[in-house]
C-alpha cells in the first residue's frame, strides 16, 4: 500500500519540477520574512530571483545548528507567532535548546509524512498502534501520535516508562503496531520473553527511530518477535520523525522529496559528492512555514540512491546511516553533545574536572558512564563525602541531559590522553554494517 501514490511515485521529471517551484517559493519566503537568511543571502550576493530551480540550490548558503542557537529562540521563524500552533525543542550544543515552531499546515504535512511511513510498514486504519516514544518537547511522541491518528488507526499514547503495562495492553487490546526507539523495542522484546507471552501478542509491525541501529539489530528483532521492523528517520530541526522511512523491502529509507530536498556533501570541502557516494546529508525544507531551513547540515553521514524501488516508490532512498560528522552522540534517543557534559560538570564546583564519557550498549540498551578524576580538591578521607560528590555530579548530569548516567570516580591522570589531550568520548557501540 502507498499512502500518497501521486507524490511517492512521481516521475523524476515531475518531482524536479515540483521541487523547483517549491524551492523558489520557500527562498522567497525566508528572504522576505527572516532577517538572518536575508543577510546571509545578501552577503553571498543573492536575491530570490537568482534561484530559478533546484539546479541553483548549490548557490545558497548552508544553515547549521549554530544558526538556530544564535537566533534562539524564535529568530529563524518565518511565520508570525499567531500562526505558530506548536513548539518542540531538542538539545543544542551548549546549554540552550534548539527550538522549532510549527504552523497548522506544518503539523498537517508532518502527520501526512508519518501516515506515509505507517503505510510503508503495512499499517492502516484497522490497526491499533501504541506510541511508546516520549511525549513532550521531544518530537517522537506527538509526531508519531498525530501521524498514526491521521492514518485512521486507533492510537494508544503509551509514552515511555512502564514496559509491563505496555505489554499487558498490547495483549489485551490486540495491538498490531508499535512506535518507539530501537533500543526500547529491544527492551520490550526482552520483557515479552521474560513474561513468556510471545504467543499472545498480535504485533505486526514496528516503526523505530530517533537513534542509530544496525541492520543486524533490525533483522534480529524481526525474527525474535516475528514482525516487520521499520527504520524511520527525522530530526526535530527539519520536522521530527517522518522525514524518511524504509518500506517492506528494507533497501534504504524513502525520503519524502516533495517536502524535503536532499543533497549529499563532503563535510570537509562542502562540495557535492559523486552520485551514490557517502557524505553528509543536507536537507532543504520545501514546504515548511514555521521554520523553513535552507540547506540544513544534518551532520548525519549517508548516501542517496535514485533508483526506483521494488515497492513502486520513486522517491530517493537514504542508505543506513554511517555515523555523524560532528561529535553528537545519540544515547537512548537523546542527543548529547560532549560540550553539554562539560558545561554541567563545570557547575559542580566551578572548575571542570578531567572527565571521560563512555557509551556502550549492553543487552541492546545504551549505557552512559562518566569517569571523573578525583583531583585533590575533590578528595576526602570520608566515603560519605565522595559518595555525595558522585550523587551531586549524577544529579547535575541528569538535569542537563535528561539522561541518567553512572558516575565513576577514578584516580588522577588515569583517563587516556592522546597527544596530551584527554580523550573525552569513548563510544563502544558498533553501528557500521
Amino acid at each position: 500500500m502507498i499512502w500518497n501514490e501521486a507524490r511517492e511515485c512521481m516521475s523524476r521529471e515531475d518531482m524536479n519540477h515540483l521541487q523547483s517551484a517549491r524551492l523558489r517559493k520557500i527562498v522567497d519566503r525566508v528572504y522576505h520574512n527572516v532577517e538572518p537568511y536575508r543577510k546571509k543571502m545578501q552577503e553571498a550576493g543573492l536575491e530570490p530571483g537568482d534561484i530559478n530551480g533546484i539546479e541553483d540550490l548549490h548557490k545558497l548558503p548552508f544553515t547549521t545548528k549554530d544558526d538556530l542557537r544564535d537566533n534562539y529562540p524564535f529568530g529563524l521563524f518565518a511565520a508570525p507567532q499567531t500562526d505558530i500552533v506548536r513548539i518542540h525543542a531538542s538539545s543544542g550544543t551548549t546549554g540552550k535548546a534548539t527550538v522549532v515552531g510549527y504552523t497548522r499546515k506544518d503539523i498537517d504535512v508532518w502527520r501526512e509524512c508519518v501516515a506515509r511511513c505507517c503505510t510503508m510498514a503495512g499499517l492502516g486504519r484497522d490497526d491499533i498502534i501504541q506510541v511508546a516514544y516520549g511525549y513532550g518537547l521531544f518530537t517522537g511522541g506527538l509526531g508519531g501520535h498525530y501521524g498514526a491518528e491521521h492514518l485512521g488507526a486507533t492510537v494508544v499514547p503509551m509514552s515511555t516508562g512502564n514496559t509491563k503495562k505496555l505489554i499487558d495492553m498490547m495483549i489485551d487490546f490486540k495491538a498490531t503496531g508499535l512506535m518507539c526507539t530501537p533500543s526500547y523495542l529491544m527492551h520490550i522484546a526482552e520483557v515479552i520473553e521474560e513474561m513468556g507471552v510471545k504467543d499472545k501478542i498480535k504485533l505486526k509491525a514496528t516503526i523505530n527511530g530517533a537513534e542509530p541501529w544496525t541492520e543486524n539489530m533490525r533483522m534480529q528483532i524481526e525474527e525474535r518477535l516475528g514482525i516487520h521492523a521499520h527504520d524511520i528517520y527525522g530530526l526535530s530541526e527539519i520536522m521530527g520523525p517522518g522525514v524518511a522511512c524504509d518500506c517492506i523491502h528494507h533497501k534504504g529509507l524513502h525520503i519524502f522529496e516533495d517536502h524535503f530536498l536532499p543533497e549529499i556533501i563532503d563535510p570537509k570541502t562542502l562540495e557535492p559528492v559523486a552520485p551514490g557516494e557517502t557524505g553528509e546529508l543536507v536537507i532543504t525544507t520545501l514546504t515548511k512555514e514555521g521554520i523553513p531551513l535552507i540547506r540544513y547540515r544534518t551532520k548525519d553521514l549517508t548516501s542517496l540512491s535514485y533508483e526506483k524501488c521494488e515497492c513502486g516508490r520513486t522517491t530517493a532512498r537514504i542508505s543506513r546511516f554511517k555515523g555523524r560528522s560532528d561529535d553528537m552522540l545519540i544515547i537512548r534517543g537523546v542527543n548529547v553533545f560532549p560540550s553539554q557534559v562539560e558545561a554541567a560538570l563545570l557547575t559542580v564546583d566551578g572548575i571542570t574536572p578531567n572527565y571521560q564519557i563512555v557509551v556502550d550498549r549492553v543487552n541492546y540498551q545504551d549505557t552512559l558512564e562518566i569517569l571523573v578524576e578525583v583531583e585533590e580538591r575533590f578528595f576526602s578521607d570520608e566515603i560519605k563525602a565522595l559518595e555525595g560528590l558522585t550523587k551531586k555530579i549524577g544529579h547535575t548530569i541528569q538535569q542537563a541531559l535528561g539522561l541518567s548516567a553512572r558516575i565513576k570516580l577514578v584516580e588522577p591522570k588515569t583517563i587516556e590522553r592522546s597527544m596530551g589531550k584527554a580523550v573525552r568520548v569513548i563510544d563502544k557501540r558498533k553501528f557500521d554494517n
Partner: protein
Amino acid sequence: MFIKQLSVFIENREGRLEKVLKTLKDNNINIISLSLADTSDYGVLRMITSNPEDGKKVLKDNGFSAMLTDVLAVKVEHKAGELQEVLDIICKAGINVEYMYALATKNDDATIVIKTSTAEEAALLLQKEGAEFLTSKEIEELKSV
C-alpha cells in the same frame, strides 16, 4: 592532641593498593596502622605513618590524590568495655563517629584512631574525662622500636 592521618584515593582494581605501598616503601615511609574503606569503584586508604607530610608529597608526586587529616588516637586499656566507655562520652554529646580503627603498639594498652563529626569538641570532652592521647612524638618513637 591530634595526629596527622595520611589518606589516599585508590581505584578498586588490581595493583593500585600495591602501587601506593611501593611508593611509600621506596621513600622509606613506615606505616604504623591503616584502615581501608572500600566501595565497588574505589577505596580510601587511611594510614598513620612516620613523616605523614613526606608521605603526602611522595604520593602526590606519583600521581595520587592524598591528604592529611587531624584525627585522635585515644589510648584504651586492654579490658572489656573500655572502648564502649570512650564512645559513650562522644555519643552523649551528640557527636558522630565518622570512622575508627585500631593501632597496635608494643605496650599493654591499645590505641584507637578516631575521626568524629566535630574534632575539637570531642577532643576536649575526652580530655576532661581523663582520656590519654597518643602524640605525634610517640608515633615517631614507635617507628624506631
